[in-house]
């Protein structure tokens, strides 16, 4: 690096060899001609737009009225824009440190395994994808519906293995005679005595969710000294009469019905037949409550709302880290390869543990490389834009907002307030400057 830099640093500046005093043209003109194309391009594409943007930021929406610092005031008072600034600082605090740390861990660990190149390629691969495309991929993976979003699908598999969902998770009581919810089960309000017939009607069950062996529901005969009843799908096309067992309405087989005492303690339970009927024989006198157990209603896993307002920023950060970890790893691995092995060997010989070697020798020696990665990430994170717009659904873009996105949305996203947009751009520019200065200084030092 330093070698090539020194050769570049030798443009003929001073007096060329020879006797005569060079003319002004020879001194500056030639250099100017060579620099001209660059200067013109920089002028047209960088200097002019920068100045124009700064001026524009002091004007109103239409650009005819000078409004001083009003746009800047809006920038720090408007809720959406303040959220954008806050989010951007979160990004600054979390992401560069995270990317650098993960890159370091990958680099150090991969140095020790076989086929490390293959692993490195895999980790580096996301860099080959544009950030926008990566955003689209993650948007799909984050879908809330476990049948669509990969991540929620993964969680659903684990969750369903631990606590499987009930057979009739969506079922609702068909009349107010049944009360309760998924936690305690549905309880028939009317107390029962031996000889009573209980009718437990349920709706909200898709016909395709009714077990295949279900038959026409029937109201069972009363049983002396026992309690009988029926659990059925209290719905036929058009609705039917709620609370009445009618033609075409099917019994629900395999439902666990609990017989509870007055205090809600379960005394005994039984399963329904194919026509939905059940019977508790030989029960003693005294009021009872019939209930359908809570596990019948336990809902299937609905998925984490990664793309919802509260999780969207961490979710996008994840995607971003996934993309950039590879870059960090490759740069750090290069730095690692340049560390003299004998230093590490010496430390080990002196009895340092692996952790001490890593902490006291490797990391300090890698410090310049880590700084490069960290500072580069700082700059990239400040102007993060495309991944936010591609992962965040429109309804949460206010919550996921960052400065660059706010600038785009304000200027071009339909608000068309170029004054405010310019002010946001200037603010972003001011934020980047200190990091740029730092970076340039460091480059100078290294040269």
């Amino acid at each position, binding site marked *: 690096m330093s070698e090539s830099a020194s050769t570049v640093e030798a443009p003929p500046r001073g007096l060329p060899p020879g006797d005569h005093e060079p003319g002004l043209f020879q001194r500056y003109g030639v250099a100017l001609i060579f620099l001209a194309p660059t200067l013109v391009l920089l002028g047209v594409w960088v200097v002019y737009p920068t100045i124009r943007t700064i001026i524009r930021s002091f004007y109103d929406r239409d650009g005819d009225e000078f409004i001083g610092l009003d746009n800047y005031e809006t920038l720090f008072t408007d809720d*959406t824009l303040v959220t954008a600034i806050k989010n951007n600082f979160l990004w600054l605090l979390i992401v560069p440190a995270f990317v650098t740390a993960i890159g370091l861990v990958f680099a150090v660990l991969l140095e020790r395994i076989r086929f490390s190149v293959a692993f490195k390629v895999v980790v580096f691969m996301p860099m080959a994808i544009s950030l926008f495309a990566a955003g689209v991929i993650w948007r799909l993976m984050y879908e809330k519906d476990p049948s669509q979003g990969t991540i929620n699908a993964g969680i659903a598999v684990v969750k369903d293995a631990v606590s499987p969902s009930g057979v009739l998770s969506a079922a609702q009581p068909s009349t107010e005679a049944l009360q309760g919810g998924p936690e305690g089960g549905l309880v028939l309000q009317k107390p029962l005595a031996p000889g009573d017939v209980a009718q437990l009607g349920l709706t909200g069950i898709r016909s395709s969710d009714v077990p295949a062996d279900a038959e026409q529901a029937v109201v069972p005969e009363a049983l002396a000294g026992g309690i009988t009843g029926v659990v059925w799908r209290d719905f036929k096309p058009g609705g039917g009469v709620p609370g009445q067992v009618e033609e075409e309405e099917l019994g629900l087989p395999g439902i666990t019905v609990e017989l509870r005492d007055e205090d809600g303690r379960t005394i005994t339970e039984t399963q329904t037949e194919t026509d939905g009927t059940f019977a508790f024989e030989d029960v003693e006198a005294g009021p009872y409550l019939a209930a359908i157990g809570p596990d019948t209603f336990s809902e299937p896993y609905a998925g984490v709302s990664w793309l*919802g307002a509260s999780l969207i920023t961490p979710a996008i950060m994840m995607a971003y880290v996934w993309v950039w970890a590879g870059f960090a790893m490759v740069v750090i691995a290069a730095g690692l390869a340049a560390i003299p092995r004998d230093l590490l060997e010496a430390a080990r010989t002196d009895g340092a543990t692996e952790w001490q070697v890593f902490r006291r020798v490797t990391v300090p020696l890698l410090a310049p490389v880590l700084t490069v990665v960290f500072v580069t990430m700082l700059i990239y994170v400040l102007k993060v834009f495309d991944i936010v717009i591609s992962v965040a659904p429109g309804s949460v*873009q206010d919550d996921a907002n960052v400065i660059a996105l706010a600038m785009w949305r304000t200027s071009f996203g339909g608000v068309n307030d170029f004054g405010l947009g310019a002010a946001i751009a200037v603010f972003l520019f001011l934020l980047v400057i200190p990091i740029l200065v730092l970076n340039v200084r460091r480059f100078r030092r290294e040269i």
Partner: protein
Amino acid sequence: MRYRWLVFALIVGALAFVAAGCGGDDNGGSAEGSEDVTGDISVMAIWGGEEQESFQAVIDGFNELYPNVNVKYTSGGDNLGPLLSTAVEGGNPPDIAAVGQPGLMQGFVEQGALQPIDDLRDAIVENFGESVADVGAVEGTQYGIMFKGANKSTIWYNVADFEEAGVGAPETWDELNEARDTLKAAGVTPYSVGVDVGWPMTDLFENIYLRTAGPEMYDQLVAHEIPWTDQSVKDALTFMQDVVGDSSNIAGGTEEALQTEMPDSVAKVFTDSPEAAMVIIGDFAPGVVETTLEPETGYNVFTFPSIDGSGPSVVGGGDIFVEFKDSPAADAFLEYLTTPDAAAIWAERGGFSSPNKNLDTDIYPDVITQTTAGNLAEAEEFRFDGSDLMPSAFGGTPGQGFWKGMTDFVQNPDDIDGITQQLETAAANAYGG
């Protein structure tokens, strides 16, 4: 944005339909042809491809009556608006153009770029009715003819779901609510909602508002002459709660609706394993999804129901023909466009809805278009999509104003006072006080 879907839908529609049936009837006062009218006229619109061919067929129909007029059509594509503005600025606009935004037409009127066509007013009213005619009028002067329309007062449903629950297409809001409850009792989720960005909900709101508050107040709200905190807005939002007020009404619940894009919301209904029975979206719905379902037997459409006895009303959009340069040939062409004959040519080719009341709807190639286009033409009250008439910072921007208000309402349907206040604040800013 919405407009793009519309165009997409119409293109797909045009590809899908094969012209069938023929003939049209002449009960709308068809234009008499003349060989005396001569000249060249240039016409510009967004239509390209299949739609361009269909429009060319309309031009050919015109040339049969006026053989000595040479009509040259140029497609402006999606950039038509800027193209026309630039052409007007440069002093060289086409003779005639079809614009999709009344606001653009109004802008041209203010610039003095358009020719009044008041002599056609009677013919327009006779064929299209007062309220469609008024879409092309600015402050009492007629400037445009809405030749091609789009109907956003439609609700699409999955036929199998409706049959399973035993419900029919509702005609009133109460019947719609009954259908919703019956569907839920059958275990079918009633609505699919996609409010990733807010506009499908702005259409729902406009449809309700037009029916509950009436067309006059609709116009006033669009012009921000009545505030969003008005009781009429709150009442309309109360009706909206019937749809989005309960998370269990919505496929995947409210959270998922907020992450669902419009085409996906349609796809959830237009499939043989539907996640919801209905989706409230304009007539372009079949064009935005790939589906194995057949129209009519797999998916079908019904008209946005009447609320408290409101008459047939349609919220929609359309392409409005305006005249930049006055000439006998241009006048003759515009007059021809008011006739049912002109509409019939495109209608039987498919991908077209005519607001012309005198066009026989049997001419449309399929029953679904007959319904959607028929409703458009028969509407007693037609109103242009309000959010397209509002300043775009309020009515047409993701995450802002009206769209934002609607997504916030879906998220928080009980906070009507908060939402209306928020809408009013945003509107006051966007309309410039």
